[in-house]
């Protein structure tokens, strides 16, 4: 198992609110190899962010990891004390968030915020930290980094802010970078710059990346392996090429079909009917049953398991399990 940098096993994260327990993440398992870029797709509210926050133990008050393991270098992060996990955060595992404006503290200069990250984990003095911050800023393609070092976040454009976030995340050469929808708030042209930057950095430093998004296009361009989530569970996992070529889960299929494509001629878009369920209203049985064109009696009664086939892909659907059963 040593080639897996990170292994998430059977993760359950629930929110204990006044209106009851919300099972946002419900038994998610996946792993990341060194240098690998994996993507997590799924629509709003399916538990992508909660999964990523769970990895760094950043889940806040009403939320709690109720079950599962998060093994990083074969150590279970869920058993770490606050102090121990702080040594991992920002150092071995870094994170980039979706909203670049609100993710930077508005009252400190960006330089200060990057230096802080450096000084937290490395024994360097202020001057040295500043030097390193400036070189990081240069690395992520900021023009005139010496001057921008003293800039406050609000003076920067969205793209520049996201670069700052990346610089901050890279400040300690992490082994794993979790990027939670890093480009959703940005324009396509800027998105392209940021994605390219991340890809290059990953190649250069052999950093593993977990890229969370709901844009299949971004997934297609960036990642090696894809995890598709729906309603707090993984419904499909596969190599990126296979997934796009041969999606198995009806949700994945529907998603691919309902994405308008720029290079295709006009044909009627298919859509997935119905609404995205929220985690507090999940039905018994398969989560996707209400919207699934192939839903069967069984789907309404029992949840399918995530079944892994020989080639390493897995899918959570009765259709395929039956097929598998038939095949055997």
């Amino acid at each position: 198992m040593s080639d897996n940098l990170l292994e998430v096993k059977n993760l359950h994260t629930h929110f204990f609110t006044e209106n009851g327990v919300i099972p946002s993440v419900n038994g998610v398992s996946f792993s990341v190899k060194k240098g690998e870029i994996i993507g997590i797709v799924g629509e709003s509210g399916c538990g992508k962010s909660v999964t990523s926050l769970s990895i760094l133990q950043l889940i806040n008050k009403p939320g709690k990891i109720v079950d599962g393991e998060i093994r990083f270098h074969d150590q279970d992060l869920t058993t770490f004390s606050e102090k121990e996990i702080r040594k991992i955060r920002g150092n071995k595992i870094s994170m980039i968030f979706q909203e670049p404006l609100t993710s930077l503290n508005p009252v400190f200069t960006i330089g200060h915020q990057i230096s802080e990250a450096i000084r937290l984990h490395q024994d360097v003095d202020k001057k040295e930290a500043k030097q390193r911050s400036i070189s990081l800023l240069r690395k992520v393609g900021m023009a005139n980094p010496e001057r921008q070092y003293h800039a406050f976040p609000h003076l920067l454009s969205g793209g520049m802010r996201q670069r700052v976030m990346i610089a901050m995340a890279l400040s300690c050469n992490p082994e794993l970078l979790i990027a939670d929808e890093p480009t959703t708030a940005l324009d396509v042209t800027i998105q392209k710059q940021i994605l390219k930057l991340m890809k290059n950095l990953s190649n250069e430093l052999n950093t593993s990346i977990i890229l969370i998004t709901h844009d299949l296009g971004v997934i297609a361009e960036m990642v090696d392996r894809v995890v598709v989530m729906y309603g707090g569970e993984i419904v499909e996992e596969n190599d990126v090429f296979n997934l796009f070529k041969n999606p198995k889960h009806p949700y994945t299929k529907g998603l691919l079909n309902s994405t308008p494509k720029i290079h295709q001629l006009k044909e009627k878009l298919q859509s997935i009917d119905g609404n995205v369920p929220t985690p507090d209203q999940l039905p018994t049985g398969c989560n996707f049953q209400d919207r699934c064109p192939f839903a069967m009696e069984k789907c309404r009664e029992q949840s399918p398991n995530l079944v892994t086939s020989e080639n390493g892909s897995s899918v959570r659907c009765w259709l395929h399990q039956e097929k598998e059963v038939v095949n055997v």
Partner: protein
Amino acid sequence: MKKYLVKRLLQIIPVLFIISFVVFVLVYMAGDPVALMLPEDASESDREAMRAALGLNDPFYIQYFRFVGDLLQGNFGTSFRYNEAALPLVLERLPATLELAAASMVVATFMAIPLGIYSARKQNSLVDLFITGGSVLGKAMPNFWLGILLILLFAVNTQIFPVSGRGTIIHMILPAITLGTGVAAEMTRLIRSNMLEILNQDYIRTARSKGVSSNILVYKHAFRNSLIPVVTIMGLQISHLVSGALITESVFSWPGIGLLLVQAVNGRDMAVVQAAVFVIALLVIIINLITDLIYRLLDPRINYS
């Protein structure tokens, strides 16, 4: 920045003008100061003679124009009561009030910040409930009542502090607590709710994801941000402080502007009322301006145009 300042300063002029007019009308309507200056026995002719001598028999508009004319020369007129120029009288008292207000602001801040932060961090705990309840209580107690109680407890029964008067630092403690408690209560509640909100912000999550410890998180990342609304509130509280000072000063015989003003109003001492209201209003405006500037200093997002 400069432009902003100039603009704000220019806005003060119409504001002061409106204030002076309103106050003049009110004091004019308030009645005859002469009645209050002579003893109950004085005869009508005695009072008439005095009114004439003080120019109080002139029609309203003449009195008002005289007032505005004098005002433009920086002259608020003469206090009937003290037979002295009103403005110096007020200014002479200003330091005492400022001192008291500043001290109570300090008391309030020093009480509110740790309490507010602590109860936010321990949200919904017993301590939090206790602090919240205490701050509500602090708000519910009228100033004079608290003041008298403090005197009884800490100056008369256990003679830790002097009873009244203005002098050394120790003299300031009880009045400052009296005046500061209400403000502290308000601020504690505010800081608590601010902190709660800020602790949920994305940038706090970012800082945590960097591996920042929870103390630094609270006292550096969150506190600096939560200070921003606190500063604005401090600016608004100044007017509460002045209101409270009217009463606290009476209780503690603190020779400040509040005491002067209450007596001037009761004595229909028009010039002093005018001067005091003017000075207080100006003070409130200026302090608000300063807090605004601090606010802008604390929050780099705001620009000055």
